[in-house]
């Protein structure tokens, strides 16, 4: 019964979107923001109620499919259904998405005040909330794809919200095109999978492709291509879609640019919810990956750890506050990805799965908090550059505390939430693959270093300003609530709630295990304090020591330039130009030749039309005589006989 309320979670934001899209312009002041906030407030209450019912009132292990109806029926075996899938994973995601969305809505009421397109902004936010919830509640992998694209569209609209700025327009296009390319892989993967498994329904897909009975009974035939099973290829293609959305290496280039959007949008879409859709996708199909295609999980873990390290390195050199946070998001999602991936190395142990989703859960809170705090700072300083900041600890006290706690959380300092989730990931990794474990520890220290560098550059580094900036209540309240979440979330026994099978997972901590990353983080904090707490010359000296490497990192390892080269020089010149030439000269040329031919022919014969009636009659008579003689010649003997 309570679960039937879940349909409201989708309907309410959709109605809000439609209403605000049509009438948002007529609403005065902050009405649109209040409507949007009330709607998301209600759905976050519903989500909390559903979660309470699911885990506390019942056993928290059942999978429910509600409102399931066939939407497109191809044949008797294959149909695309629309419906709601409620299990531990989707309910956890719904709770996170609605909660962060509610916080961001509250915050946006004040942050966006005075914008010309205030109503449209909240309409887009509602559209995003609707599509994201639709995505996590999808019962069918094709339904996921539909909402996946809707999420992409709303992200595009919100990145390009300041459409007068050319950089925002370019960033919106970049985000859309890069994820589009990845989604192509996703779509092809879905089609192959539907062909191989004869279903698109997620529970049925998982049952057919991962339970040992059906696999050995031979109902699913494994087609092989070049030593790989077709299903592996399909699952890899689906992962490419997820990697694009989650900004994994080498498709990460769109996320830092996406920071052109309003800061609350970055908090909601590009930190807490949409970018973890890729993690959600892999987690959703996890049993298939785990049982059938562990080789894809190997790829996933390496992609994850490379993204995590690369993004952490780049984040150390960036000076735009939102870009640092964006790279840190890529890095943290990398952690979630490789945590899913390393289960393939761990001989049947699935701690990595729970750890990954635990990190997703805690990360959503502290990263949204970091972004919202960054929004307050940007609002006060009117700049994104850290060089314009410094010494803000007295002028923005609430933000200072919130930012510090979130920084400690992302650094994995106990007893904040980030410690628990990152520790779970590292424990799982240590059991599975020592190489990735040590790389992850290095990444974690780097994370601490760049986050504290950012913290010091914003709040210290210069003598404290005593001029107190106004921190609006609508800024402080979400910050405080999210700070509480950051403080307390780690104590949730997450393994009791979310695990692969039916048995619960105990997330255990070993003191020796925890000592290494926490020690690394403490060292990194010490280093950052020495270098950045006051304006010192150490960073410059270090930079001149590693001149070339610093330049490479500062320019983000030239990935943008690489893509620019590949698209403009190679694709445009070698593929685009010949095709354009063919179109212009062969296709258009044929049409033009036909037109020119008819024109010259008519020019040549138009003299005949003299306007002289008698010459027309002459032609007519001549024609009649010719026809008559032909007829007489052909059939004349009939007349004679």
């Amino acid at each position, binding site marked *: 019964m309570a679960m039937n309320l879940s349909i409201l979670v989708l309907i309410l934001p959709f109605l809000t979107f439609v209403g605000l899209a049509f009438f948002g312009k007529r609403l005065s002041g902050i009405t649109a923001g209040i409507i949007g906030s009330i709607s998301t407030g209600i759905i976050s209450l519903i989500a909390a109620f559903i979660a309470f019912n699911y885990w506390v009132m019942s056993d928290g292990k059942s999978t429910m499919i509600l409102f399931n109806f066939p939407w497109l029926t191809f044949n008797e075996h294959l149909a695309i259904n629309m419906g709601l899938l409620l299990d531990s994973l989707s309910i956890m995601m719904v709770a996170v998405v609605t909660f962060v969305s509610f916080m961001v809505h509250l915050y946006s009421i004040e942050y966006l005040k005075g914008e010309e397109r205030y109503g449209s902004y909240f309409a887009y936010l509602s559209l995003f909330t609707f599509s994201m919830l639709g995505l996590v509640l999808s019962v069918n992998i094709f339904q996921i794809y539909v909402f996946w694209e809707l999420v992409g569209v709303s992200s595009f609209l919100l990145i390009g919200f300041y459409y007068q700025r050319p950089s925002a327009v370019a960033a919106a296009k970049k985000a859309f095109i890069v994820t589009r390319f990845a989604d192509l892989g996703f779509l092809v993967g879905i089609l192959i999978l539907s062909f191989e498994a004869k279903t698109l329904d997620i529970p049925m897909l998982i049952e057919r492709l991962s339970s040992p009975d059906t696999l050995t009974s031979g109902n699913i035939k494994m087609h092989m291509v070049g030593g790989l099973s077709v299903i592996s290829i399909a699952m890899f293609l689906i992962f490419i879609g997820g990697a694009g959305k989650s900004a994994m290496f080498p498709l990460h280039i769109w996320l830092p640019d996406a920071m052109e959007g309003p800061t609350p949008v970055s908090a909601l879409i590009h930190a807490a919810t949409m970018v973890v859709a890729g993690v959600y996708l892999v987690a959703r199909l996890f049993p298939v990956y785990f049982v059938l295609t562990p080789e894809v999980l190997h790829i996933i873990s390496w992609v994850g750890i490379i993204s995590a390290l690369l993004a952490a390195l780049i984040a150390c050199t960036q000076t735009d506050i939102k870009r640092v946070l964006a790279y840190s998001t890529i890095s943290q999602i990398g952690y979630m990805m490789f945590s899913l991936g390393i289960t393939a190395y761990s001989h049947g142990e699935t701690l990595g799965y729970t750890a990954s989703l635990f990190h997703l859960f805690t990360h959503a809170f502290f990263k949204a908090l970091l972004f919202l705090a960054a929004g307050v700072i940007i609002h006060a300083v009117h700049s994104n550059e850290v060089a314009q900041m410094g010494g803000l600890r007295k002028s923005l006290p609430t933000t200072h505390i919130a930012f510090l706690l979130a920084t400690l959380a992302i650094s994995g300092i106990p007893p904040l939430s980030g410690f628990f989730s990152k520790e779970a990931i590292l424990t799982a990794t240590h059991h599975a693959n020592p190489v990735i474990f040590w790389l992850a520890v290095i990444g974690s220290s780097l994370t601490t270093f760049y986050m504290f560098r950012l913290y010091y550059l914003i709040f210290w580094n210069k003598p404290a300003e005593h001029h107190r900036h106004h921190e609006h209540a609508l800024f402080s309240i979400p910050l405080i609530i999210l700070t509480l979440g950051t403080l307390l979330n780690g104590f949730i026994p997450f393994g009791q709630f979310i695990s692969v099978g039916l048995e619960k997972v105990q997330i255990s901590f070993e003191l020796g295990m925890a000592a290494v990353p926490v020690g690394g983080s403490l060292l990194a904090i010490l280093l950052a304090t020495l270098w950045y707490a006051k304006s010192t010359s150490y960073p410059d000296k270090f930079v001149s020591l590693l001149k070339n490497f610093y330049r490479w990192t500062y320019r983000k390892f030239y990935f943008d330039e690489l893509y620019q080269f590949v698209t403009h020089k190679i694709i445009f010149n070698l593929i685009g130009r010949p095709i354009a030439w063919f179109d212009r000269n062969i296709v258009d040329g044929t049409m033009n030749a036909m037109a020119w031919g008819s024109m010259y022919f008519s020019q040549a014969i*138009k*003299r005949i*039309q*003299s*306007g*002289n*009636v*008698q010459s027309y*009659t*002459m032609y007519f*008579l001549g024609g009649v005589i010719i026809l008559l003689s032909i007829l007489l010649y052909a059939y004349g003997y009939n007349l004679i006989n």
Partner: protein
Amino acid sequence: MLHILILSTALFFIGIYGFFTRRNLITMLISIELILNSVNINFVAFNKYLYPQQLEGIFFNIFIIAIAAAEVSLAIAIIINLYRKFNTIDIEDTNTMKH
């Protein structure tokens, strides 16, 4: 019958000749009437000598006369309008409808 056919053929070609050589629209119209009348004579002659018990040829005759009257009225109307526009009914001068 032969004489009648010779007469109608002569009339027909006189009409054709007149149509091609005259420059005056009224004379051209008269030539067309000659052609029509030669056809009429043909109809009557064939009806009388080949199928004397039938009347189709004569009916056709009546139709042709009626249509010719309508055609003449139309043609005269066109000619009058042409005259109003060009102040002439010479076919050489009214050749503006060309390429």
